[in-house]
C-alpha cells in the first residue's frame, strides 16, 4: 500500500534529507490486531517509525487511534502481531522512560489537584531516577530547562489547575521532556487549545523535533490540525490506509480521504 503512494510524488528532496541522518527504526509494528470483546478495533496494522520522524496519525473517532497508542505504550496487549521498540520486543522493553507520553488533556488528571507546575514537571523524573532513589540534586534546574523548551518558564510556581488547557498541555510536554525521551507520543494534543495557538503549538513541537532530534508521534481526529510542520502522516481507520510523507498526503484526493475516514472531512492547507 505504501509503495503505491511513494511513487507518485516528487519526494526526492525528502528522501535526500532523510538519508543524511542515520536511518534508525525506533518503532515497528507487524500485523498487529486488537479487539475489545467482540468489536474489532485494529486490523493487521504494520508500520515503522524512524528516528527523527514527526508523524501524525489521523483517524476519525473510533478508528482505534487511542488503542494503537495504548498498545505502543504497553498499556494494552495486542491480540496478534509483534511490536518492537528500539529493536527490542515490546514485552521485554524496560526503558519506558525513552518514550515520553502526553495523554489527552481532558481525561488525564483532576484539575483540582493541589500541585504546582514545578511539582508536576519534576514528577516526570520518577521512572528515570528509579525505585527507592531520590530525585537528582539538579532536578530544579532540569525543571526550568524543560519549562523553557515549552515556553512556560514563568509559570513554575503556578497551580496546575489554574492554567488554560493549552498551557497545561505544554506543562505535560515539559513533564515528558524532563526525562530526555527519544520519542514523544501525544494523544490529541490540540484538543482544548484555541485555534490561534495551535500553530504556535506545532511550531514548538517542530523545534523539539528539529533541534533536539526528538521523534514525535501524535494522534488526532481532525484533518485541520495536521499542520505542515509534520513530516509524515498515517491514515488509520481500523487498518492503515496510508502512511507516507506529508507532501504525499497533500496530494491525496478529497474523495479518497473521505472514504478512509468514513465521513466527510475538510482538508485545509
Amino acid at each position, binding site marked *: 500500500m505504501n509503495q503505491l503512494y511513494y511513487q507518485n510524488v516528487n519526494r526526492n528532496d525528502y528522501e535526500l534529507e532523510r538519508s543524511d541522518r542515520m536511518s534508525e527504526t525506533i518503532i515497528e509494528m507487524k500485523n498487529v490486531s486488537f479487539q475489545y470483546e467482540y468489536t474489532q478495533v485494529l486490523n493487521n496494522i504494520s508500520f515503522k517509525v524512524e528516528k527523527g520522524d514527526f508523524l501524525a496519525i489521523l483517524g476519525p473517532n473510533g478508528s482505534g487511534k487511542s488503542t494503537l497508542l495504548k498498545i505502543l505504550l504497553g498499556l494494552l496487549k495486542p491480540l496478534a502481531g509483534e511490536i518492537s521498540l528500539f529493536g527490542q520486543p515490546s514485552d521485554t522493553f524496560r526503558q519506558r522512560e525513552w518514550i515520553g*507520553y502526553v*495523554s489527552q488533556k481532558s481525561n488525564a488528571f*483532576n484539575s483540582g489537584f*493541589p*500541585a504546582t507546575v514545578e511539582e508536576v514537571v519534576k514528577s516526570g523524573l520518577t521512572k528515570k531516577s528509579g*525505585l527507592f532513589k531520590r530525585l537528582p540534586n539538579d532536578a530544579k534546574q532540569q525543571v526550568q530547562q524543560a519549562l523553557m523548551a515549552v515556553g512556560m518558564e514563568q509559570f513554575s510556581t503556578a497551580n496546575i489547575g489554574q492554567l488554560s488547557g493549552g498551557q497545561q498541555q505544554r506543562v505535560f510536554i515539559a513533564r515528558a521532556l524532563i526525562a530526555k525521551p527519544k520519542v514523544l507520543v501525544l494523544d490529541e494534543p490540540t484538543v482544548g487549545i484555541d485555534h490561534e495557538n495551535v500553530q504556535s503549538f506545532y511550531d514548538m513541537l517542530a523545534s523539539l523535533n528539529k533541534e533536539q532530534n526528538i521523534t514525535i508521534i501524535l494522534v488526532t481526529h481532525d484533518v485541520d490540525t495536521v499542520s505542515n510542520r509534520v513530516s509524515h502522516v498515517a491514515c488509520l481507520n481500523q487498518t492503515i490506509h496510508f502512511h507516507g510523507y506529508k507532501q504525499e498526503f497533500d496530494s491525496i484526493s478529497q474523495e479518497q480521504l473521505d472514504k478512509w475516514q468514513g465521513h466527510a472531512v475538510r482538508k485545509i492547507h
Partner: protein
Amino acid sequence: MIEALLKFEFLQNAFFSGLVIGVIAPMLGVFIVVRRMSLIADALSHVTLAGIAGSLYLSQTFTAFALLNPIYLGIVASVSGSILIERLRSLYKHYEELAIPIIMSGGIGLSAIFISLASGFNTDIMSYLFGSISAVSRHDLWVVLTIAIVVILFLYAFFKEMFVLSFDEEYAKASGLPAKWIHLLFMIVVALVIAASMRIVGILLVSSLITLPVAASMRIAKGFKQTIIYSILFGETAVIIGLVSAFYLDLQPGGTIVITSIFILLLVIFGKKIALKMKQKGSNLK
C-alpha cells in the same frame, strides 16, 4: 493537664497516640483525598469494627482469646477489607464505587452479628465507636507507633511514585512504574492507619481525621508538599485541642476532635473569603 499527664499512664498513652495519629492520618489522607478514595477509608473503618467486635466476642467466649488485644483482629479485618475492595473494584470496572457499599455493609453486618452474639460489652464497644481517652493501653500505643513507622517508611520509599500515581494513573502506567504493586501497598498502609486511628477518634470518625484536615489544607496550600504540611498542622491542632477539651469536659475524644476539625475547616474557608475580599478592596482603592 500537664500535671495529670505526668501522673497518669493512661493519659500519656492517649495523648502520644493522638499526636502520632494526628501526623500520619492527614499525611496519608492527602493521597486518599486527591485519589478520590475518601469513601474507601470509611468503608475500611467499618470493616475494622467487624474485626474488633469479633475479637471481643472471641475473648468473651473462649478464655484462650481473653488476653488478645482487639486491635490485632481489627488490623487483620481492615487489611483484608482493603484487598477485597481492590478485587471488587477490578471486577466492576465501570462501577468501581460499588465496592464501597458492598464492603461497608458487609463490615457493619458482621459487627452486628458479633455484637449481638456477645451481648455484654456495650461500654467497650462505645469506646471503639467514638474513641476514648481512658481505654488506650500502653500496648495500643506501641501498636500505633509501629504502624506510624511503617507509614513513614512507605512514604519515604515511594513518595515520588505515589505523587505520579495520584496525579495521573495512566501516565504512571505508561512510564513503566509498578503502579499495581504500589497501589496495593498503599491500600494496606491505609488499612493500618485506620486501625491505628480508631482507638483515639473511634471507628465512626476515623475518616474525618483523614479527610477534614486535607479539605481545609487544599483551600490555602499552593502546592502538593504544602498541602501535606498544612494537613498535618491542622490534624495535629485538632487532636491536641480535641483531647484537652475531651479531658476537661469529660467527653468522647472522637467527638471533640472532629468538631475541632470542622471548626478549623470553616475558619479556613471564611478566612480565605475575607482575605480575597480585602485584596479586591485594596486593589480597587488603588
